[in-house]
């Protein structure tokens, strides 16, 4: 087993575009859950809508500068549709509706036809969309592999990594400023005690709606970085379905819910951790340390989801505040 290879790949994932898109999406989720206490379990829906919005626009020949805002607009509309029926109700209704809505989005993106509408001509049906990322790749300033002393990326990866982390840093700056503003304080007040905030004349419903839209925009951006990074958008559960939502949740909780840098650090650690266990299991299997009847090649890929579920349970039971979080800042009770 080549430990050097495993280690360098793990470090690469720590800084790779996977960690970056996780972080962007987790920053959005942190605005929802960490700062406002909204239970969004359909974050993959926001990612999917942003990703498809952009990819379809690019495919139809629009420039990148138009395609990205279209994806963001679509995500805004999605947030409004989710928010209107649920934000006046108890917190867990939003949970049910978001998880259902993200499934609806995925089913519709996968569908061949929706009634008389031939959706496949735009979404590619179950094969998804490939080869839309040309306009993005054309902007790539790197002409060869980038080799820093601890990480190395191909020219193509280096470009998305650079873009991804730039968005992460700008997002963190934005969240920092937003949460210091009076608006941010109202957000936290709604999380702590919605009735009290309302008694002080704040429009809790409207603030929650703004938070849902804002966080959803980051989710959509994360989805865009994700599909640009892998140059294809697929309507599979692993890519843009419920499991993806919970990957983002674990990344956010791991780093520390409601903390500025929490989602970023959590995403880096979680992305590297997934790569490490994956490669270690594959290596151990090739070495014959794990017998074939216990785990075969397909099952190695499935272990990461088992670990995901276990990780989510253990984190929530024993350390819901994550690594850097503050337990007092968690909105863990239904109000």
């Amino acid at each position, binding site marked *: 087993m080549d430990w050097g290879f495993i280690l360098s790949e793990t470090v690469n994932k720590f800084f790779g575009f996977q960690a970056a898109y996780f972080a962007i999406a987790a920053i959005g989720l942190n605005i929802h859950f960490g700062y406002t206490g909204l239970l969004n379990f359909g974050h993959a829906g926001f990612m999917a809508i942003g990703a498809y919005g952009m990819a379809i626009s690019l495919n139809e020949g629009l420039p990148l500068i138009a395609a990205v805002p279209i994806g963001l607009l679509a995500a805004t509309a999605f947030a409004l549709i989710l928010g209107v029926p649920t934000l006046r109700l108890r917190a867990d209704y939003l949970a049910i509706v978001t998880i259902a809505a993200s499934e609806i989005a995925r089913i519709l993106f996968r569908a061949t036809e929706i009634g008389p509408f031939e959706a496949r001509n735009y979404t590619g049906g179950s094969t998804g969309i490939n080869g839309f990322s040309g306009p993005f790749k054309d902007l790539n300033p790197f002409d060869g592999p980038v080799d820093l002393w601890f990480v190395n990326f191909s020219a193509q990866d280096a470009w998305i990594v650079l873009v991804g982390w730039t968005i992460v840093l700008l997002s963190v700056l934005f969240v920092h400023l937003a949460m210091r503003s009076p608006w941010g304080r109202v957000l936290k007040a709604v999380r702590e005690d919605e009735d009290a905030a309302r008694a002080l004349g704040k429009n809790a419903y409207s603030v929650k709606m703004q938070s849902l839209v804002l966080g959803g925009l980051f989710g959509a951006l994360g989805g865009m970085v994700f599909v640009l990074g892998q140059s294809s958008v697929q309507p599979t559960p692993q890519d843009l379905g419920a499991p993806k939502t919970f990957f983002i949740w674990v990344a956010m909780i791991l780093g520390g819910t409601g903390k500025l840098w929490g989602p970023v650090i959590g995403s880096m650690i979680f992305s590297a951790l997934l790569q490490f266990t994956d490669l270690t299991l594959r290596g151990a299997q090739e070495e014959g340390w794990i017998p074939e009847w216990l785990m075969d090649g397909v099952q190695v890929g499935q272990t990461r989801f088992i670990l995901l579920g276990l990780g989510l349970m253990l984190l929530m039971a024993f350390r819901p505040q994550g690594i850097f979080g503050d337990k007092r800042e968690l909105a863990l009770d*239904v109000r």
Partner: protein
Amino acid sequence: MKRTPGIVALLVLLAFSVLGFPAAAGAQEEPGFKGTLTATPEEGDKFPVEGVKITVTSPDGGEVGETTSGADGTWFVPVADAGTYVVTIDTGSFADGIALKNPDQTFRELDLTEGQNRNVLFPLIEGEGAAAPNVKSRLDRVPGLVKDGLIFGLIIAMSSIGLSLIFGTTGLTNFAHGELVTFGAVVALFFNRDVGLHVIPAAILAIALSAGAGGANELGLWRRLRRRGSGLIAMLVISIGLSILARYIYLYLFGGRRETYAQYALQTDGYDLLGFRIVNREIWIIVISLVTLIAVAFAVNRTKTGKAMRAVADNRDLAESSGIDVEKVILTVWITGGALAGLGGVLFGLNQGVAWNMGFELLLLMFAAVTLGGLGTAYGPLFGSVIVGLFINLSTLFVSSEIKNVGALLILGVILLVRPQGLLGRKERIG
């Protein structure tokens, strides 16, 4: 631990379920699955069949690709990576008079080696025995769809009683409830296919184990979390973690295929009623679910335990101070809910086959049904489920069946908008 009996059973299942077909040497072409669809008429020569949809899915349920057979009957789905795949033929896309020679073989689970171009056979026939589903007009399909919807609704209802009662008594929105449904179906499949029991004793064993799994859930996890003072939202997230954990353990042990029970799955004996045919299996599913639902309704309304359940659901503290053993009531709810979910899973599996993610698909419909009927009420789930079941099936009159579940989930949004407490719910629960 949480699901010890289940894990043990599933581990044994693993030992038995090592399937594998030796890979046939394929021609050196582009890797993937290919085939030529031809139909054999009752008299005369074989002819190619055009326009049939073929789907290839990966073991984890992800769709790899789909295609439609060409004018010469050929089809090809490119698959890049080696591995095990499920190739499914969509019988709904058949033209009039065409049918599968073996109606049960709508899919194949096949291994693909690196770079292999593998041939897959789906023998078709043409003739009287192959009544096509497409010949019927919209109106003619309604009675059959109502029947299917009713059956599906009853299955949803049975599975979701536990979900609703658990929410009522503990306040927990249990996202792992769908996995209890899968548990029942998978355990019954194990006793049926691998141990060799007839499906009826296998189902009874599976229901007993599901009841145990429900109880183990409460004792091993939720009771402890309540004692530790975990908040309801923390528990909700934990139930999601449990759901993913259990679901992917099923996938790990069971694989991504859809399987049927050894008995009744291919049953064709039945009765022709007003424009539709009902087979004996479906009659039994309706009878069993109705009897069970009536029994549960009676138990909740008339027995002492049922009264205690409603008392705890109404006001936990008041119930406790009037001498009700609340923890015992909650345990009873979990055991009952587990058994009902297990039964729901077996009936669901009997009707549509057993798959690792069947419970999760059902869960979202259960949520829609329970919310529609009224979260936390005893009868709400039944009303909501039947409406959801009917709506899903009747919507296929207008949309393709691949998106039929969307309608049910849209109902969820609409009902929250206009009457968030559900049809039978009371207003104070939602605030």
